[in-house]
């Protein structure tokens, strides 16, 4: 490898309940870049995020994952997080009885009241949210924004954001997208999973996934154009047919 890679995924295969859902995925993320993964619902984007984060249910049956020059394929979620990888789930979990303040502090135990408020402000939330609970009382969009501010506080080497825009209202979307740049400027690489074109446009470089395969890699603009022109007509495809299409893409 000539170029330095932060994350290097090589040929991973993941099955769930006997079905192949990642079929020989290879990809890289460079230090400091904002990298996109596009693909329709069911393409396997979240599964890829889980496999990189190291969830045991998504352990690859073949292929390897390197991070920062180390083979992390057999590492636990905790070990990967401590090495600098984190994930903002598509649907972040709720925690009964836990105040937002305590939840955010997990990402950075040293952060004081001001830093916590700043992190909330970045996603257009007022500091009074610190006293709210991270439970069912928050709307989906509020919960997602709190997750993003917790990622910001963690200052990870690699932040994987699974559909960071979903459930976030249009007014806050600008701030959320601004946050990708803030993360990258702060030294994090960002891997964004999305099927929205404006979010895809915020990336430096993108991949396109289809039926468990990477079918395209290129500039954010080129991948987005291909996605809009080639994947849209594909909307009614059966999963088995989709696999054929993916196979025909190479």
């Amino acid at each position, binding site marked *: 490898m000539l170029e330095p890679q932060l994350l290097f995924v090589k040929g991973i295969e993941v099955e769930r309940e006997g079905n192949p859902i990642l079929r020989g995925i290879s990809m890289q993320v460079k230090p400091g870049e904002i990298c996109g993964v596009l693909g329709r619902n069911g393409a396997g984007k979240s599964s890829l995020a889980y496999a990189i984060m190291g969830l045991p249910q998504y352990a690859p049956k073949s292929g390897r994952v390197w991070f920062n020059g180390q083979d992390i394929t057999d590492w*636990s979620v*905790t070990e*990967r*997080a401590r090495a600098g990888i984190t994930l903002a789930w598509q649907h972040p979990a709720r925690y*009964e*009885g836990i105040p937002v303040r305590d939840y955010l502090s997990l990402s950075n135990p040293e952060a004081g009241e001001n830093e916590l408020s700043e992190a909330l402000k970045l996603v257009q939330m007022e500091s009074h949210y610190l006293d709210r609970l991270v439970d069912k009382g928050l709307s989906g969009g509020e919960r997602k924004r709190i997750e993003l501010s917790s990622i910001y506080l*963690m200052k990870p080497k690699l932040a994987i954001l699974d559909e960071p825009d979903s459930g976030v209202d249009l007014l806050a979307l600008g701030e959320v997208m601004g946050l990708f740049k803030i993360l990258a400027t702060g030294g994090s690489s960002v891997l964004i999973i999305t099927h929205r074109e404006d979010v895809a446009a915020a990336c430096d470089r993108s991949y396109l996934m289809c039926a468990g395969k990477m079918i395209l890699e290129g500039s954010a603009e080129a991948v987005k154009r291909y996605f809009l022109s080639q994947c849209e007509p594909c909307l009614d495809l059966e999963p088995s047919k989709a696999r054929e299409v993916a196979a025909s893409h190479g």
Partner: protein
Amino acid sequence: MDNVTEEYKTLVAIAEKTGGEAGSFGSEDAIYVVVHGNNILASHALPGVRIEATETEDGIDANITVEAGVTVPKPVHLCFGHLATMGRQVIKSRIRLEEKASAEFQAHCIFPNAIEFLHAMEGEIHLGPHSNFSYREVHVHGPEGRIDVRPVSRVRIGEGATYRGDFTLVEGRVGNLAIDIDVEAFGRRSRVEITSKVYGKYDDFCQVRDIVRLTGPESSALIKARVVLKDRSQGKFLGLVDGAAQGARGHVDCTEVIQGEAKAVASPVVQASHPEAEVTHEAAIGRIADEKIQGLMAKGLSTDDAIDFVVSGLLR
């Protein structure tokens, strides 16, 4: 004498660290009793509250009376404990609130080093008409202990009086716990609220038995339990409300969360022995979802720390 001072300092330091009103021990305007084993290390009362305590062979025997019409402004702080690894402590008490008296009691039971220990509390509580009593008991046990904890209370509630009982054992090992609370709300419009929060680990055994008989017309009760069990611990919850008078209303609410090989049984029992009583219940036993734990691990927490964090919210 030096020993006694050391024991006093240690018990009080732990009690104050564990929440409740800090700084009441030794203060002139507070009511408190500190007992190590069967030694009363310190005790202070104020006008309107009578405390008669005697040392017995293995503990103390105390009568506490809050006189009619008296409202105790600060919580009455009781601290029972032992710093030894083995032994027993039996605390017998009779607490009486006279008519229209009002008081809040905060008890800390502290056994940081106990390995083989019996701690029994035998309490009788009598609440006079329109009195108001709240009792919070917090236990602090060490990480190794196999301590037997037997809090037994008999509570009788008069007309228009309110009893609020809170039992918390979430730090250190539970050991072998059997809470046994028996309440009779015989007064018209008397009220009962009982909350238990327990965190069992290793091979701890936690049994909570809350029984309320609503014999007073229009009396009401809420029994609430939050029990978290991990490793090989076992939990048994029995919450019973009997609506035995016209207009009596009761509810039992129990949530048990299990991890590892823990086992839980929850039995909410409601009976309406009076046709015009209304009693309801809800109970749930479940595991902590993987996504909750993994979400925290993705922030660098270990599996155990992630579980503890989730549990701290459930038991808050």
